[in-house]
């Protein structure tokens, strides 16, 4: 038995060492934006921070739902939209720290969907590299325990980012100054089609956002830390939980999806009360009457027409909140 244990240990040591090295943290990356799409967008938009007042950031539900032009008109403040698909609060905060930490007069409007605090939402694109970087080793293993190859894939990406940051090679970014004619807003036309019950049930049961829903784990702790960092920046921030179509709401009422969304709203509301510079608007629980189902191109995303109304509505809410301060 002793011989077996010694041999096993001898065999395991090099492997564990190699593996630990591979899974090591890279503290230098805590100061990087590990999202090339976001970096490309920021550079492509050629933002002049001295003339800028509002930055819209977050995921697709800001990218495709908030029009800077409407904000410019309704508030008189210069606005830009740097939101990109799948961009979570952790990534937004790292971008703010890297690019705008010194711009004291800036305000931030950030969409924050519930998937970013769900430990089970780890399908491709739903766990950002910034968030992954902030996970502990145990956290990484627990989140990816059934998807070890994806854990390795993420770690390889992180390692590549580490090499880039050490070598200082970021030439791979694709900069296109004509890519964002609407100040970073990307409008989508059309409206969603109603599905039959069985297709909808399949969609609901396999929805990546709510998979193995767990809103109080590692990602929630990282989300809380991001809020603390936002507080340190001390710029006025609005974080919002985006609206969904009434078709979606009626079909998910009291389901695990509805429970997850409500739980998320409740927790963020409670958490944000701790921070003076952050306001939270919950448009999931509080419907905007003007947005009917014809204004959604899918169940959870507004189309261009809806984005126009929503932008006007949020601009108004922003002014109320801003003036009040």
């Amino acid at each position, binding site marked *: 038995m002793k011989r*077996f244990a010694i*041999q096993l240990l001898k065999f395991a040591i090099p*492997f564990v060492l190699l593996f630990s090295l591979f899974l090591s943290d890279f503290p230098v990356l805590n100061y990087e934006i590990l999202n090339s799409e976001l970096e490309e967008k920021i550079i492509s938009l050629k933002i002049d921070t001295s003339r800028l007042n509002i930055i819209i950031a977050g995921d697709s539900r800001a990218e495709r739902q908030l029009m800077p032009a409407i904000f410019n008109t309704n508030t008189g403040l210069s606005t830009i939209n740097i939101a990109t698909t799948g961009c979570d609060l952790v990534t937004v905060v790292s971008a703010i720290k890297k690019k705008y930490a010194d711009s004291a007069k800036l305000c931030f409007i950030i969409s924050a969907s519930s998937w970013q605090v769900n430990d089970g939402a780890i399908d491709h694109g739903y766990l950002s590299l910034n968030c992954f970087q902030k996970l502990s080793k145990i956290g990484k293993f627990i989140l990816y325990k059934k*998807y*070890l*190859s994806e854990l*390795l894939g993420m770690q390889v990406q992180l390692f590549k980012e580490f090499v880039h940051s050490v070598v200082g090679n970021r030439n791979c970014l694709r900069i296109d100054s004509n890519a964002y004619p609407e100040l970073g807003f990307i409008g989508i036309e059309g409206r969603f089609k109603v599905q039959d019950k069985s297709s909808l049930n399949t969609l609901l049961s396999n929805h990546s956002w709510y998979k193995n829903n767990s809103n109080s784990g590692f990602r929630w702790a990282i989300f809380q830390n991001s809020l603390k960092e936002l507080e340190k920046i001390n710029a006025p921030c609005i974080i919002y939980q985006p609206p969904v179509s009434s078709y979606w709401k009626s079909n998910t009422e009291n389901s695990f999806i509805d429970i997850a969304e409500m739980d998320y709203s409740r927790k963020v509301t409670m958490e944000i009360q701790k921070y003076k510079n952050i306001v939270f608007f919950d448009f999931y629980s509080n419907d905007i009457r003007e947005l009917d189902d014809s204004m959604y191109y899918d169940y959870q995303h507004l189309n261009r027409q809806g984005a126009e109304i929503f932008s006007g509505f949020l601009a108004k809410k922003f002014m109320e909140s801003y003036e009040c301060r």
Partner: protein
Amino acid sequence: MLFNSLDFAIFLPVVFILYWFTTKGNYRLQNFLLLIASYFFYGCWDWRFLFLLFFSTLLDFYTGIKIHEATNQKNKLLWLWLSVTVNLGFLGIFKYYNFFATSFASGLSLLGFQTNFTSLQVLLPVGISFYTFHGLSYIIDLYKNRIAPERNFVNYSVFVSFFPLLVAGPIERATHLLPQILKKREFDYSKAVDGMRQILWGLFKKIVIADNCAEYANTIFNNSEGYSGSTNVLGALFFTFQIYCDFSGYSDIALGTARLFGIDLLRNFAFPYFSRDVAEFWRRWHISLSSWFKDYLYIPLGGSKGGLWLKIRNTFIIFIVSGFWHGANWTFVVWGLLNALYILPSIVFNTNRNNLDIVANGKYLPSLKELFAMIFTFVLTVFAWIFFRASSVRGAFRYISEIFSGSLFTTPYFPGIGRSLPIIFITCLFLIVEWFGRTNQYAMEGIEAKLNRPTRWTIYYGIILAIFYFAGKEQQFIYFQF
């Protein structure tokens, strides 16, 4: 708790340490610990089915004693039938009720009668086909006076529910496993190392080959109408390796795990894809099930002793029942029937026991005759697997008709074919390793005698890296559904 899960990677070392460090070589304590571990392992699927497992175990334990104590043949037979009926009754209700009810209703509707039957909304208890057969083998062996009854419930329960074999076999015999359970197990270094190696090899087969082949097999089988004949052939080949590596990988992990606890289980696979005829294939594929059917069904039916027609009848019964054992679907019955037809010529011409030894024994390469025989048998097997994989018999025939469409001799193509190339390469490499290791219990068994430690360890590290690198989403083992 799957063998290829992180949960099992924690569970196994914990049980292993407790087993060897706390029981101090006391076989009663060892059995007690194994029983608790096995029930915990099974309860991780669905704790409610623990009651069914417990009841089935208790029933066979009690009827076993009663059979032994019965003073006349009539009473013996009565207890035997009680056990057989209740065991098969459970299996029938959980596994076959809905199938028979829908088949009956469809049959009646063809005759113009409309019926309403109530379907059972129950989950199939994992491993029920396996532990039911364990219990039946014990009861039948007792009835035939091959063994004495076990009078300690814990010992008997370990025989039925020993966790490495609980959910997908091998289907053990009381004559083989019970004597091992009834004696003290001492730690054996070489046995434990060999067990670890077999587990590693099993994980490689399952995670690297089976799970990756599954992805491409599913892609092709689910959209077969959109693909060329050659692509559908490739889909069938992917499934052929998926099912072999899935089930034999599971068996390797089970056997290896059992060896860590000082217990040898029955061998389940012996390189079946190197068989030279279908009869040989069935001596090498799912050996514990084939031999179970041979001993408890084929021979009681008269076996091969009553003339050619009886032999043919018995063979067909065995294969159809075996197909049906796999699942409540006509596809499995057709698969069984097809295998019976394959084996028919060798029964008629009495050549079914021609190839009892290992192919090309003592040689590096097979002769041309052996090679052609192996390829021919392999092609027949691949063809039969189409029925096993298809969701319906009609679907299987559609798939076959698509294979034999005009596009059979075109270059195969499906989305992801580029990604599948490394897996095709690894599968070829795997076949080479299997070929050179075909004289062993499993392909890597002989590695210790042939290679020095640094080379061996490099290979092990390589396999572990491949397992991590190619691991996709954790997949259930195919045979768990049976």
